[in-house]
């Protein structure tokens, strides 16, 4: 189901957690809310769920105003970071819970509930564990039970709050891929909160980057990574270098040297140049380049990270090179950013 959040404001006491946030979530989409802690992403998720009520603004499920509905009436599925399983119930009972508590006229028969729960356990690859108690499962297994439990009620929208936050790296990666598969098979509209950019970029159809109670940018993972629209997004997603430059006649100047990058149409004056460590080309001579002396090199998986001291007011710059490119300390490297963005204060 399509979910629309319109001009939501939420204050806790006098502290504004969300400030005029609007977001359209398309039906069947897998969307990530990404941001540092305190950015309001979990609050937004809980507002959609109905676990919090907005100070101002409206949440629509389809064309229906859901703001006045209670959590129970919204029919959503919610997965918590720490699983929140019912530990006195077996796995099967946990998954069936949402169906067994329905009023008699909407409740499926016992056999149907059991069948549905077993199907879901099969979907989350936990067949055979239905008689276990949550305490007897690993973290990854518990979170899969939690997901099956949330899906059992055929929710309008599936909301996941840092679903893999409590798991170790290996399991996280596995579950990430697996969640994508489940989503593609079931087609539930899904919103998940994460502070892990890899998770958001790898998993989501669209990513919503949030900071300080506001949405910074909404876009596909490619758009978010390749064309960040604010210094915050540039700095928060991936690695980036920031240099204080000057625009003069459509050319970028670093202190007294042109760096060989033209910025047509940009007004003259100081600006911040943002570029990613791998969006560069190495140059032999320096007719217009950024040049620096190697201070540190690190091998990180398939690339070599090189820190350069480019002198004077600007601190260090980090660039990524292919690992076969061996550089020795104190050697001089010249390069030029190939993809970059200017921001002004």
């Amino acid at each position: 189901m399509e979910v629309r959040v319109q001009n939501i404001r939420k204050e806790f006491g006098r502290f504004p957690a969300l400030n005029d946030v609007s977001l359209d979530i398309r039906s069947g989409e897998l969307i990530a809310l990404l941001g540092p802690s305190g950015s309001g992403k979990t609050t937004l998720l809980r507002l959609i769920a109905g676990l919090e009520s907005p100070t101002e603004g409206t949440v629509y499920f389809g064309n229906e105003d859901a703001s006045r509905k209670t959590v129970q009436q919204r029919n959503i599925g919610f997965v918590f970071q720490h699983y929140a399983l019912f530990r006195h119930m077996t796995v099967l009972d946990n998954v069936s819970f949402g169906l067994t508590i329905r009023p008699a006229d909407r409740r499926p028969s016992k056999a149907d509930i059991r069948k549905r729960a077993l199907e879901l356990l099969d979907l989350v690859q936990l067949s055979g564990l239905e008689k276990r108690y949550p305490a007897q499962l690993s973290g990854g297994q518990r979170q899969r039970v939690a997901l099956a439990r949330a899906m059992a009620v055929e929710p309008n929208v599936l909301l996941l709050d840092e679903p893999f936050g409590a798991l170790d790296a290996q399991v996280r990666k596995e579950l990430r891929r697996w969640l994508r598969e489940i989503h593609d098979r079931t087609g539930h509209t899904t919103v998940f909160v994460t502070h892990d950019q890899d998770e958001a970029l790898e998993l989501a159809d669209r990513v919503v980057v949030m900071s300080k109670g506001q949405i910074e940018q909404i876009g596909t993972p490619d758009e978010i990574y390749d064309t960040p629209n604010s210094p915050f997004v540039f700095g928060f997603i991936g690695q980036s270098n920031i240099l204080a430059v000057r625009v003069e006649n459509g050319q970028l100047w670093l202190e007294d040297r042109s760096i060989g990058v033209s910025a047509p149409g940009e007004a003259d004056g100081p600006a911040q140049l943002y570029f990613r460590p791998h969006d560069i080309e190495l140059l032999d001579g320096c007719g217009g380049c950024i040049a620096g002396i190697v201070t540190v090199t690190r091998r990180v998986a398939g690339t070599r990270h090189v820190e350069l001291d480019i002198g004077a007011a600007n601190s260090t710059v980090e660039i990524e090179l292919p690992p076969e490119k061996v550089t020795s300390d104190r050697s001089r490297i010249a390069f030029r950013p190939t993809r970059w963005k200017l921001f002004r204060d």
Partner: protein
Amino acid sequence: MTERTASLWQFRQPSVIPGFGLALGVTLSWLILIILIPLSGLAWRSSALGWTTFWELATDQRTINALRISFGTAFLAALVNVVFGVILAWVLVRYRFPGKRIIDAMVDLPFALPTAVAGIALTTLYAPNGWIGSLLTPLGIKVAFTPLGIVFALVFVGLPFVVRTVQPIMEEIDKEVEEAAATLGANRFQTISRVLLPGLAPAVLTGFALAFARGVGEYGSVIFIAGNLPYVSEIAPLLIVIRLEEFNYPAATAIAAVMLVISFAMLLIINTIQAWSRRRYGYGA
């Protein structure tokens, strides 16, 4: 060498604090000294009675009534304490209000107060001419000097046991569990009855067992409010004292032995159920 080390460690968990042997030794000697020797004295004295004499003494109508009253009132009082103790613990865990600390401290008073003082206070209140008793008498309810009075006294002494065992477990309950129930469509009643209370069951059971055990053995507060009518409101511990004062040691021993067996059996059953549910639900370990 390695094999020998392995066999040495067979019964012990490697630990940063060694001393399994010493600790177990102290525990056992202490248990023997404090509990086992006095109790085996009891067993020995009653076995000296011979089976027929013992059976006669134990099945004496007055003894049976006294036992029934003791266990019955203790059971009822423990049930009442479970209901109100859980509510009280809930209020203390979940809400903040002025005077909370004072109420929290008040819960422990029955632990500290001499039980006789409690008994006399309750009797004064609930006697037909007391503050509360005089209000109840027109309604035809008699509390003091009836088994009902015994229940009241036992509720008083047993309350902290339930509150103090349930409270820490309640504090552990994650708010998210309730929210999870709500997102799945559970209303408040369903969340409490299907999610919260079953999760608390092991702790509630422990509290029940403690309050019950305390009630069975309680003497001081009860004898003032009970009226101590033989066959009607006479508790087993009092009957033991009466028999002792009559120098009727065999009868006193027999009653005590019966109480011991019943109490031990009940506590063993409750503890087993409790350990089983604890293990299953993954509380503690």
